[in-house]
């Protein structure tokens, strides 16, 4: 096949491709005008753009000069004289600084001072962390409510059940989310010192994972384990939500619970340690 024939073929292929682009574009406009439909829009746009792409590649491959062309490549560095001249020009007039050492020091002082002053507005970006990571919204006698704000009583869960709860008035507050589990009908003691924390088998643990803060949402009733769906940290509930697998290093903090005179669940106090992932000053 000689070049002429090939060129003719490439020309007609290109013309066809550009024609398809024009048709698809009209289709695109019609689709849009008639209310739009994303699958058709995407497909037609792809056809329209693909036509242009195909056409241009045909032009580049068959209708334009192919070369190869050769271009020389000069060495990058300038001559030693040019480099020296540049350095000399750059350094001209620097005597005002180098001759007077104290001026250099004052300039350094001024630059440092204005630099630090310019950093201060960054402080406006956020509040002082203060106690924010150490406290939640749970207080002494906070009523335990579910995600709809309904109070939770001793009969709400059967043994083996689990429920996400919040302190009354603070539903959906991230650091106060608590997973309430009923382990048995009798009081449950997960650790020494927590004798009164699990009345009638109810235990509450912070639902904020101690690894990276995801909600520890999956309760495996059969193994009495809590699993974090993000990074698979696994916590053994009867042992005080001690981590048994995965990247978490610390137990989920336990919420001291009590049953009030009306049979409703309440908190004895806030959590006794910071909830959620670790941080530098956590234990201070």
């Amino acid at each position, binding site marked *: 096949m000689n070049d002429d024939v090939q060129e003719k073929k490439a020309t007609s292929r290109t013309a066809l491709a550009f024609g398809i682009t024009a048709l698809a574009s009209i289709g695109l406009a019609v689709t*849009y005008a008639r*209310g739009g439909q*994303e699958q058709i*829009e*995407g*497909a037609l*746009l*792809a056809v*329209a*753009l693909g036509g*242009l*792409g*195909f056409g*241009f590649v045909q*032009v*580049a*491959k068959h209708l*334009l*000069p192919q*070369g*190869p*062309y*050769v*271009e*020389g*490549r000069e060495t*990058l560095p300038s001559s030693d004289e040019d480099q020296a001249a540049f350095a000399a020009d750059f350094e001209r007039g620097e005597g005002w600084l180098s001759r007077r050492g104290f001026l250099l020091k004052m300039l350094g002082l001024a630059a440092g001072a204005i630099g630090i002053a310019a950093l201060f507005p*960054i*402080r406006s*970006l*956020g*509040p*002082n*962390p203060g106690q924010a990571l150490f406290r939640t919204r749970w207080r002494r006698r906070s009523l335990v409510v579910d*995600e709809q704000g309904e109070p939770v009583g001793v009969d709400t869960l059967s043994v083996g059940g689990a429920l996400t709860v919040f302190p009354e008035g603070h539903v*959906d507050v*991230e*650091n106060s989310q608590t997973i309430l589990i009923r382990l048995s009908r009798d009081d449950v003691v997960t650790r020494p010192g927590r004798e009164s924390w699990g009345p009638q088998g109810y235990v509450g643990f912070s639902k904020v994972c101690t*690894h*990276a*803060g*995801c*909600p520890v949402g*999956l309760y495996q009733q059969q193994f009495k384990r809590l699993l974090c*769906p993000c*990074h*698979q*940290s696994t916590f053994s509930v009867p042992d005080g939500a001690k*981590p048994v697998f*995965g*990247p*978490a*290093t610390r137990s989920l903090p336990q919420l001291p619970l009590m049953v009030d005179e009306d049979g409703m669940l309440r908190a004895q106090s806030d959590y006794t340690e910071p909830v959620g*992932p*670790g*941080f*530098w000053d*956590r*234990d*201070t």
Partner: protein
Amino acid sequence: MIVKRLVRWFDERLGAARFVRTALNKVFPDHWSFMLGELALYCFAILILTGVYLTFFFTPGTKKVVYHGSYAPLKGVSMSQAYESVLRISFDVRAGLVMRQIHHWAALIFVGAIIAHLMRVFFTGAFRRPRELNWMIGVTLLLLAIANGFTGYSLPDDQLSGTGLRIAYSVVISVPVVGVWTAFLIFGGAFPGNEVLTRFFVIHILIVPVAIAVLLTAHLAILVRQKHTQYRGAGRKERNVVGARLWPTFTAKTLGLFFFVFAACAALGGLAQINPVWIWGPFQPAAVSAGSQPDWYVGWLEGSLRLLPGWEVRVFGHEVPNPFFSGVLLPGITFMLLYAWPFLEGRFTKENREEHHLLDRPRDRPLRTAVGVGALAFYAVLFVAGGNDVLASRFNVSVNLITNILRVSLFVVPVAAGIFTYRVCKELAARSPTAGEPEAPPGADVVVRTREGGYVDVEEPAGTP
């Protein structure tokens, strides 16, 4: 003729005819692997085009509103303005969904193209002197692309993006000494924070794109100044560039590539659903679903968070939490090594005393190739680990088993892949007759057959005035 008159009009005012002519005649070497960087460039262009469109409809607010749009299952649900506006873009703005999906697909391809381009540059030794600066700019561009991907992913305020932000917040507070303050300044308080969406919006649509545009310009300017590298071959020398001229052949070809990339993104954006936020639902802090996965380029970090066993370190009574090692230290070391590689290798090979414009074949550099493949294997294992729960449910084994297998694989697979690569390289190099072929001697010319059937010698600096 019109061209002549236009040239005259502009040249009388700018006097640039000679300079622009040199630019038009600039020669670019031709190889499919040189298109990977262009691919990334065009993805960036598509991201700007579709992204600007999306900004006309998106509201980065955290104020709660009740949904009254046309997506029935969420009617009457309380949600943030941000999430509501993404639903509006998806269901009530004509061409909104296709633009959003093209934008998301282009972002995934953008980072992929940058990484593929980086691999090409690495395995062919194109980062060697004089290109160390451009290598470092390129690594910075990768960093910025990932950062912009993550901030964009966070904006819709759906369940998945909220989970991603929660993890990012935990990683930031894990940094010793300054972590908690830094997180509070970024988020405007404890998680979820009321400011983070507005700030990420500004970062996503202004700060990082401008930084990318500036560095991209520098990247290309340095490329033009230094001229492109080329593979070894007949007539190709350290002191020349063989290929197609910028105008018109290269321009037509690269325009064709641009339209093909755009066409592929449009096809994906129209036909392949991506990030259907209306299924995830608005972000609720107490909810999360199993199988939560980030966009692919964050998968290696997700994997490292999942694989690291429950270790933490105590320093003078302070805590250095577990996510610091997997979420800060690992990516920190990764990018430090990337930045330092040209200098590390140069110190080792002493090759940085002269310029290199001819590319290596990976087989001729078995050690570098083996190190590169080993590193890729390392990050591939981390990436797979980012989906360990998906693997566990797909193959019906416990996630603990999968995790333990991957923990071992993280060290075994890269070493094995490295050794295997090294041996394959040695074998290939020994077998290939052109291995270590010396450059063509000075004065050796290239003879090319023309369209008319004649033979011409192309050694003279073609076309340049």
